[in-house]
């Protein structure tokens, strides 16, 4: 459970909902629903993994990860 409310953020202009982030998120905090990317903040650790794989650079992880 994430008490600090730190969570990955998504630049909606840059995100094209490709799902690469959902594939690597260990916590199921990023889910593609239909054609939309849904973030589930209470599941986000944050760990920085999704931001690393995003092909467009749409994800930013707090703490500079």
């Amino acid at each position, binding site marked *: 459970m994430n008490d600090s409310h730190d969570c990955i953020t998504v630049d909606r202009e840059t995100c094209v909902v490709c799902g690469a982030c959902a594939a690597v998120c260990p916590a199921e905090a990023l889910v593609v629903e*239909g054609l939309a990317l849904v973030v589930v903040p209470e599941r986000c650790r944050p760990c920085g993994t999704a931001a690393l794989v995003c092909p467009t650079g749409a994800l930013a992880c707090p703490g500079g990860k």
Partner: protein
Amino acid sequence: MTVNSRFDVIVIGAGPAGSRTAAQIARSARRVLLLEKRPRVGYPVRCAEAVGPREDVERYLPLDDRLVSSPINGFLIVVPDGTRFQREMPGIGFVVDRELFDQRLAADAVSAGVELRTGHQAMGLIREGTQVRGARVKDLASGSEYDERAEVTVGADGVESLSPRWAGLKKSLRPDELFSCAEELIEGIDLPGTFIEFHLGRSFAPGGYAWVFPKGTGRANVGVGINPLRADGKTAVEYLNAFIAHRAPGGKRTRLVIGGCSVARGLSALAAGGFVAVGEAANQSNPFSGGGIINALEGADMAASAVAAALSRGSASAKNLGAYTREWRRTVGKSNDAFYHAARIFYGLSDEEMSRMARELSRVPGLFDEKGIKPLRMVRALVAARPRLLIQFAGSRLGGKSRR
């Protein structure tokens, strides 16, 4: 036995793996529900669209002029020092229209009696103990959720799949288990014939490769797939821009395709009680190239066969469905393993080592057959050319027993 369920099987995902599995199970006189979360099958395309030879593809779908964007009649590999290796191989493959390809496979499933629901997404699995008994489904248009029960649930939900994770067969991918990819369909590119091109090197595609797949006269899918851990802070899109500037500077960009492409090793278990995984969701794509269309279709036929047999015996137990895992491991699983080991060695090479290795490989007889590279032969050649690789190779084999 599941009473009052309208379906024997629920298939999650109407890409090639899901549509084919659904069609083949329906043909064994079972009631099948096929769920696709997107409003339209096949759209948007998230693929470089290359498939193998005609006789491989036409086991599943007849190829016609509308499906085929271009034949592939050979390949060109450009290594980091710029040396080019080219080989004509007539009929080695095709670049297809993936949107139409997927729609044809889904249409085939429907004609076999499958019920297809687009805009409906599995949100979880229904379980009774260790047995999966169906899925919790959301109608995305209305937001309402419902339970759909079935003896067997098939997870064919692609690279971002959750259903095999819910079934305990898979963990999230590590960042080095996928290529982060970006591609443009370019109009106005110089193409030396109908060759499929692979460009290697840290500056174009660190830990992966850049490609040019012909889509017709003067048109091609031009893309890059990178290892996110070697990206040096740059995105796939940035690498794509650099590669397009190099390879197709005057070209017009007409369709941007973005995605993650699995290069993970095939799952060690493809089945659980009441559940099987197929296609990219099951890590069945080629760990060296990321290609997965025919792999998905092959996996689908094996899954369908095992599911139909288990249903006939009245038990969708993990043991019965495990026949699918054994069949996959016995056949395609072996080349999946070989490509996985080859990729670990090959993509770990420095630019200089890669250029040198390509020269060595080009001298190996019988490296290629009519279907492409023979992976075990490539691994042996790599190891022979550089004995230190033997230790890496042995290490990756010994340490490589799947954790999943």
